[in-house]
């Protein structure tokens, strides 16, 4: 299966780029990533000299499962801490050696046009394929008026993007922060400023843990901590939602989006693509398992495409968007009931506990006097919590009631007519039929 990807005219052999982050900080890593098969990289964010410095203690915090699986990670690392010219020289060499891979340069300089004017020609000189403006980083640099300090003010996004676009021939991707109330505003601003694409999400502002002996947030630097940027599998749901909002917004629909946020497996990547991302960027998964995961990502995506008879990555992009809607348009005449497969049930009773204590008292705990769990159709509102807590896959499933069946909870016959909140009699502003 050909996974050839084209994003803003930039070609890469697959839609998996390494995001701007430690894995793309230098030639050594990027070469190894390309040898492993990654489609492209967004080079770790460059800034103006003198190069910034990092803390000399731990820069990463983590949220683990009990088996030490890394579920979420945060960092207080800043942009590259190497001299600008060192990075530029390496970018040039790497791009020359890997002409078929995408090499994007991430930038973050102060909010002054001259700063941007001075750095852009130097980046063009590397013959990299494009730029990503880092308006997302929520820690450290934001205190200095950069990163998410820009990304949280749509007017600044538009202004800086415009400066950049008017001073370079290179395609420009604007990287957005999720630390904002409504993602559509910064996205619109980016495109208004002339951005060719947006990428999101950058990390979520976070404190991952507090040491209960020292009372220091972690990672702890000499007994103090600061908020960092949260990433990894835990943030994927946030990212999927924000990507879809931009893809659905009439003002930005059909614009290019590079999806970022917790992509760990090929499935995650496919989901981002279906919600409108043209490609995906990966960081935490590579930082957890190394570059080798690219083989799983590419083979997984192509196997799935084969099964679905999808011939190119671009066919996937936005495939689920028409199914993302507002709550008010969900069909209220669609009735389902949980049902428990007694052959698969191991009788742990978790469904009972959650339904009885926190939901709708719709599961009974005995069957013919013996321990056993069954759904009470008269009470089940189909909330799904029993399925969420059931440890056995497919043991509890939702059954769609057929039109004509009686919903035992409401006593009403299930209708095959679509009807939503906008027309519901309980809605004070529902559209009433003419008298």
């Amino acid at each position, binding site marked *: 299966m050909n996974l050839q990807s084209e994003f803003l005219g930039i070609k890469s052999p697959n839609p998996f780029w390494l995001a701007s982050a430690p894995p793309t900080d230098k030639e050594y890593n990027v070469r190894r990533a390309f040898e492993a098969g990654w489609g492209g990289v967004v080079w770790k964010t460059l800034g103006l000299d003198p190069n910034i410095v990092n803390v000399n203690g731990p820069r990463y915090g983590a949220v683990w499962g009990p088996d030490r699986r890394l579920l979420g990670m945060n960092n207080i690392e800043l942009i590259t801490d190497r001299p600008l010219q060192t990075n530029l020289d390496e970018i040039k060499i790497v791009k020359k050696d890997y002409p078929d891979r995408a090499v994007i340069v991430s930038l973050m300089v102060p909010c002054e046009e001259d700063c941007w004017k001075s750095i852009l020609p130097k980046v063009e000189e590397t013959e990299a394929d494009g730029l990503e403006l880092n308006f997302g980083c929520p820690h450290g640099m934001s205190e200095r008026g950069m990163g998410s300090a820009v990304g949280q003010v749509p007017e600044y996004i538009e202004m800086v993007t415009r400066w950049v676009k008017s001073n370079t021939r290179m395609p420009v991707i604007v990287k957005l922060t999720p630390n904002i109330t409504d993602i559509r505003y910064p996205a619109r601003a980016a495109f208004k400023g002339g951005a060719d694409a947006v990428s999101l999400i950058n990390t979520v502002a976070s404190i991952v843990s507090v040491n209960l002996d020292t009372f220091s947030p972690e990672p702890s630097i000499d007994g103090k901590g600061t908020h960092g940027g949260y990433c990894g599998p835990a943030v994927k749901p946030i990212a999927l939602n924000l990507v879809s909002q931009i893809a659905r917004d009439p003002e930005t629909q059909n614009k290019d989006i590079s999806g970022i946020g917790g992509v760990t497996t090929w499935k995650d990547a496919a989901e981002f693509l279906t919600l409108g991302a043209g490609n995906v960027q990966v960081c935490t998964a590579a930082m957890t398992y190394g570059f080798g995961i690219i083989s799983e990502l590419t083979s997984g995506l192509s196997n799935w495409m084969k099964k679905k008879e999808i011939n190119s990555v671009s066919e996937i992009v936005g495939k689920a968007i028409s199914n993302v809607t507002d709550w008010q348009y969900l069909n209220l005449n669609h009735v389902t009931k949980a049902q428990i497969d007694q052959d698969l049930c191991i*009788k742990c*009773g*978790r469904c009972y*506990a959650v339904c009885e204590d926190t939901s709708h008292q719709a599961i009974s705990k005995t069957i013919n006097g013996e321990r056993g769990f069954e759904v009470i159709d008269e009470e089940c509102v189909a909330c799904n919590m029993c399925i969420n807590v059931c440890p056995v896959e497919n043991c509890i499933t939702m059954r769609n009631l057929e039109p004509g069946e009686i919903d035992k909870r409401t006593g009403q016959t299930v209708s095959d007519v679509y009807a939503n909140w906008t027309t519901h009699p309980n809605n004070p502003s529902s559209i009433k039929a003419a008298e």
Partner: protein
Amino acid sequence: MSNTKLSPGIVSSRLSKEDYLNNFSDAYPGFTNYEAKVEADRCYFCYDAPCISACPTEINIPLFIRQISTEMEDEAAKTIFDQNILGGMCARVCPTETLCEEACVREAAEGKPVKIGRLQRYATDSIMEKNIHPYTRNESNGKKIAVIGSGPAGLACSHRLAMLGYNVEIYESKNKPGGLNEYGIATYKSVDDFASKEIEWLLKIGGIQINYNKTLGKDFSIDELRKSYDAIFIGCGLQDTNKISIDSSADPLVEDAVDFIADLRQVKDFSSLPIGRNVVVIGGGMTAIDAAVQSQLLGAEKVTIIYRRNLDNMSASKKEQNNATSKGVKIITNAVPTSIYKQNGIHKLNLSYTEVDKYTGKLKELEQTFSIEADQIFCAIGQKFNNLLDVFKSHKGKIMIDENCKTSVENVWAGGDCVDKGEDLTVSAVAQGRNAAQAIHKSIF
């Protein structure tokens, strides 16, 4: 190493020092912190969890496992001890595969139950290593209770009573406390003198005095005790064993498996214990398994368990059967010994095959026979009670108790192996001892 596995007869020093050390080291060592956390995460925290009802002491298992997973080992241990003050020993010796772990829903789901026993050991070891005793004794209430026997039942009863403010005096026939915990458990299940350390820890509650070398019927009587104590608890276990009669010429070769196991627990140097080259163990319970496995570990060349019925009838669990066979023990079922003879200086045991008669349901010997070499024969066909039966109402040859562990005699309670409701399990003895203590308390106040 003066002898080898092949040295004839019953001799000591069959193995090297290292082999003895390895063979009798901890069979199931405790979990590390990480192992415990990963295993604890497997618990589903079931509603009305089946493991709890499968535990004779009804430990709140999902709660203590959750406490382990949130790094509260001491609280986890307390959850265990609240129900079972000998939770440390039970974690080592309970046949969990037929109790809590058999009931674990993950057994049904994937055949791999949460390792509840090992998690319990992790929690209890953790608090006991820190030498924390998490209970304090109520102010003395001035009442005196006599407890006969310092085995699991007697200890559990004593601890609970002491906690409630009673002054407890234990009468122990041996010169060391612990009963079967001290004498009746396979050595590799309770290493490093755990049984006596556990008792030392348990006695920290205070208010418990142990009188050693006091045998019921010899040094004191129930009637005497009744005069000087407010209540009596009997947890004296079973003193006698069932004997097998093969023929009189076999008698010198036959030993009680119970004595063999007790000797192993008390010996300091395993190389000093003589063991036969060809060992035969007769019986189908845990005692038979423990005797057979330990014979093998002492360097016997061939160890054979002879059981008169089939594998499914053995009271030793499948796990224990597998443990025995993995150590090299051969289990022959549906056979009974009939006679013994000597050939070229070697004793041979004649056996008949058996089957259950289709019509009567009784076991009968078949005509087919075979013989095996036998230098040493351990008899493990059960223990019996032959004490006090004139004083108490009895059932199945044991003291009859009601659901509150009360005997037919006023102010006398009983529990453990000596009662009709005894289950030959440490954990059941603990449950009865504890329940009797509560019942005594209720009857006095």
